[in-house]
């Protein structure tokens, strides 16, 4: 059977689930794009960084903190960790070839993964999220409170970030440092710290994505690995250089693969990732710069 039985209510439910998936991809994709824009580094450790901070949240909650008490603490730790990683791990290889930097972020991913296994063990852990899994009726469609909460938190964070980048002096300085480091130094911006700040923000985005998705899946050191692939796909879909692109790309991807997985029989849950990558391949053939990116034109 190619097409499963269809009802509008179920379509709406699937859409909601897709948007929830997409919100997670969007957050992580945005983290990838922010780091890429400020440092031209593809951060392969983004997933592990997110999982690591989620484990910290788990430990805090295990020691009796409520989710919402642990939440800001974890964000602060994530931010400091992101800044520290840029300063300590990335700074020494700042001017190294791209391949070297790729290896460094891959190494960082392996290191963090190993650390998590040592500290928290490799077993699945139940992570109790802040939202209940019961469903409420939204215009005749039952949608889980958890899905709504995840989307609300993710979207809220994206909006906050957008406001920060658009309306604050620091946000402006960060954008300036990303597009033109030389001129930024000439107006007195400490470019090095801006790059570190970019990593800090990316780590916070990852931490939020991790704490949001952990209650849906299980918490283990590899939790983010598949999700990171989707996030990369979403970032590329959006154009890799465009924060809006990352968010739109994430949501689109989440919805598309959820619908494909549900309604196109042979894709199911096993072929979702290949299907997503196929879609992106096709899109990139049509629009090499992604949905929102600009293509670097090379004249010969």
């Amino acid at each position, binding site marked *: 059977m190619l097409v499963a039985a269809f009802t509008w209510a179920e379509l709406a439910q699937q859409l909601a689930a897709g948007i929830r998936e997409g919100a997670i991809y969007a957050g992580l994709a945005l983290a990838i794009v922010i780091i890429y824009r400020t440092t031209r580094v593809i951060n392969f450790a983004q997933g592990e960084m997110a999982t690591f901070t989620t484990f910290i949240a788990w430990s805090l909650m295990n020691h009796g903190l409520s989710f919402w008490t642990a939440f800001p603490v974890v964000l602060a730790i994530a931010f400091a960790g992101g800044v520290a990683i840029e300063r300590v791990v990335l700074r020494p290889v700042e001017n190294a070839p791209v391949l070297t930097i790729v290896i460094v972020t891959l190494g960082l991913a392996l290191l963090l993964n190993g650390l998590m296994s040592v500290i928290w063990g490799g077993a699945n852990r139940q992570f109790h999220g802040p939202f209940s899994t019961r469903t409420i009726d939204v215009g005749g469609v039952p949608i889980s409170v958890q899905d709504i909460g995840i989307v609300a938190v993710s979207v809220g964070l994206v909006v906050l970030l957008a406001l920060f980048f658009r309306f604050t002096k620091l946000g402006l300085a960060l954008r*300036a440092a990303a*597009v*033109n480091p030389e001129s930024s*130094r*000439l*107006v*007195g*911006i400490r*470019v090095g710290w801006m790059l570190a700040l970019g990593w800090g923000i990316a780590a916070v985005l990852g931490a939020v994505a991790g704490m949001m998705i952990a209650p849906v899946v299980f918490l283990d050191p590899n939790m983010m690995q598949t999700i990171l692939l989707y996030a990369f796909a979403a970032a590329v879909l959006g154009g890799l250089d465009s924060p809006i692109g990352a968010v739109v790309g994430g949501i689109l991807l989440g919805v598309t693969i959820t619908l494909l997985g549900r309604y196109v029989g042979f894709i199911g849950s096993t072929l979702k990732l290949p299907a997503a990558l196929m879609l992106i391949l096709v899109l990139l053939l049509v629009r090499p710069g992604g949905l929102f990116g600009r293509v670097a034109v090379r004249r010969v």
Partner: protein
Amino acid sequence: MILELHNVEARYGPVKALHGISLRVGEGELVAVLGANGAGKTTTLRAVSGTVRRSGDVVFAGKKLSRRPEATARAGIAHVPEGRGTFSELSVWENLRLGGYTRRGNVKHEARRVFEFFPQLESRLDQQAGTLSGGEQQMLALGRAMMARPKLLLLDEPSLGLAPIVVTVIFEALEHMKGGDGMSVLVVEQNASLALAHATRAYVLEVGKVVVEGTGDELRTNESVRRSYLGY
């Protein structure tokens, strides 16, 4: 003296571009740097702002000047580099705001001062800087520097590619800033007669060395300067 260079050398990799430059800029002075292409004028400005590796002493407002560009900017030096250094992806307003990055005061108030000289900018605040005309970009570059209220302004060929009327506006703005704010200017100019008309003093460079120095009037009447740089 606001700025003193003692025997400053600078190099690009193995290539030495400055072979021991000494020069001074007094408070409220406009000092011009002249010389043929490749003489090291741009490099002299870059040595001050720290955008090229240098050795030798640079003293700014009585203190040894840092070699890091962000630190020189914070010390009160605004450098409008060759090629203007505007943020072409950002809007005109964002460029101006970045110009005042090191200052705490009211940006809008500072910006009004810029618009008095360059009213064209005010009507284009939301335009992407990269899409401005060449003259407008030069105005923006200067406006951005004004936003910082620098003690010393380093200007690299402000008249390059501009209509004479715009050049006049720009030099008027300079005169005003150094009169009103006690700002000093170190300006590199190909247009020597223009530079000497406004400069209190000037230096002529040749292959990374100062070969002539003097007041604007002295240089205007100097035979060899006239023949090589003024062309009459």
